[in-house]
């Protein structure tokens, strides 16, 4: 308790202390139930602490006066619009009668909030792509700290939280939230982590602390690995088509080979027929020669018959002359066909090589696909 005689000294002391105490302070001197003197620091005031204001009996100060002892009390936000701690010291006269009180009010600040200005600028620069740190009280943004690489200009101090904001949801769910936000909301993909901060006795949430980090690299990586997977799928499909056409080529070549063999058979048959033609021609020739001999033996009477014999022999000679021509043609057919057959065997080999190569490529692609899936998984965890 303070003696009335010492009160002037206290007032002088308070004048000095007011702007020295971090966070600010308000001193008020109460005579009976009325503020008679008030000293506030530049950064912190309470409107109610005004000379002339009367105090009701339920205030800390009046309780201290009635109970004649020093009382310390935390006053919730609902009373003065901000959380404050109030200490009231009764003032007594020479007869030890309580005549008033000296009341000191401090802003009540969460330790994290108190330290925000110290740690946030450092922490913000410690992220690869930069970070944006903020603190909210229960309704609005109270502190913000952008980094050199990353800022969220729309989130200013005083910004009112709405129910889509993560801080709002943390306050109402009483759970920390770590969430990815896609580019539709803030123009680029973000990772937002928000934790609730409790008061001294860990009962009530009084604030939240949030860290926002851009996810550009991770998203780019994920997109790339997605693209990679798509391309690989395309390649795999193309290779399958390739393998399928190799199979078609293979069966075509086999058909071609059997066709070629058939052609060889047919040209053999043509040769047989042409041998038959030669035989007939030989027979006809002999017939013609015999007819000529017969005509000669018949003398003049056989003259007409001799002409016929001559015609027969001519006919036979003509027929016979076709035989080597046919043979020549069938020889050419056989030669061409065997060339074609050789080529088809070669392309059969090539198509088999192609099938083998495309199997190898498929195996490689599968490996790469597996790797890109892993890559994609890694990108998701970033």
């Amino acid at each position: 308790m303070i003696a009335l005689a010492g009160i002037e000294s206290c007032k002088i002391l308070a004048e000095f202390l007011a702007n020295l105490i971090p966070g600010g302070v308000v001193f008020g001197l109460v005579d009976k139930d009325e503020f008679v003197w008030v000293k506030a620091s530049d950064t912190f005031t309470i409107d109610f602490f005004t000379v002339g204001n009367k105090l009701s009996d339920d205030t800390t100060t009046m309780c201290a006066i009635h109970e004649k002892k020093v009382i310390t009390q935390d006053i919730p936000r609902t009373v003065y619009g901000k959380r404050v701690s109030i200490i009231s010291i009764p003032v007594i006269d020479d007869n030890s009668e309580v005549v008033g009180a000296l009341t000191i009010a401090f802003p009540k600040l969460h330790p994290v909030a108190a330290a925000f200005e110290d740690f946030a600028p450092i922490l913000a620069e410690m992220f690869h792509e930069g970070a944006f740190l903020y603190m909210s009280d229960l309704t609005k943004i109270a502190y913000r700290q952008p980094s050199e690489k990353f800022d969220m200009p729309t989130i200013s101090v005083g910004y009112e939280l709405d129910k889509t904001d993560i801080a709002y949801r943390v306050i109402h769910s009483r759970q920390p939230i770590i969430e990815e936000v896609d580019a539709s909301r803030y123009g680029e993909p973000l990772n937002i982590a928000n934790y609730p901060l409790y008061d001294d006795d860990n009962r009530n949430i009084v604030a939240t602390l949030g860290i926002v980090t851009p996810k550009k690299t991770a998203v780019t990586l994920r997109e790339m690995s997605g693209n990679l997977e798509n391309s690989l799928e395309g390649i795999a499909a193309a290779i399958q088509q390739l393998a399928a056409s190799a199979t078609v080529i293979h069966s075509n070549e086999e058909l071609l080979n059997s066709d070629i063999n058939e052609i060889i058979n047919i040209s053999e048959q043509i040769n047989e027929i042409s041998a038959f033609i030669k035989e007939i021609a030989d027979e006809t020739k002999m017939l013609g020669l015999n007819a000529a001999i017969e005509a000669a033996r018949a003398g003049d009477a056989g003259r007409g018959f001799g002409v016929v014999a001559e015609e027969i022999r001519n006919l036979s000679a003509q027929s016979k002359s076709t035989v080597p021509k046919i043979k020549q043609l069938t020889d050419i057919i056989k030669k061409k066909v065997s060339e074609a057959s050789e080529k088809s065997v070669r392309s059969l080999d090539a198509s088999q090589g192609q099938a083998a190569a495309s199997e190898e490529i498929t195996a490689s692609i599968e490996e790469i696909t597996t790797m890109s899936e892993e890559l994609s998984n890694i990108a998701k965890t970033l």
Partner: protein
Amino acid sequence: MSSLELVVFKLGEEEYGIEIGFAQEIIRIPKQITKMPDMPSYIEGVIDLRGRVIPIIDLKIKFGFEQTERSVDSRLLILDLENSLLGIIVNDVSEVIKIKEQAIEIFSAEISGLSGNRIQGIARIDQRLILLLNGLKMKSEVLMK
């Protein structure tokens, strides 16, 4: 200007001709030729041609040529040498031609004698030389030995 009709055939590479009057017919060489014992090597054997037995000779052996394989074109030329039938094996009967007598060069007795009078002359047609067989001489040589 009289002319001559010849049956032309081949023995090896050479062409021979015989007057058509000596020829009776041309047939394929029969599969069955009956061999006869104790005959000169140029006698192939005998065949039965429509009821008549005909001796077959290989003229190339008779003429002392190298024996060549018989081909599908080989034929049997049946000669009618004054009612004696004789078959000669030839490589190919190529044709029956009519030539003018002037085209035939008759060998002198000396040259003809060197060949045992088998060749009586040579017929020249374009670039071809056709040796002319003496039919009568053949008969005496082959059938009356």
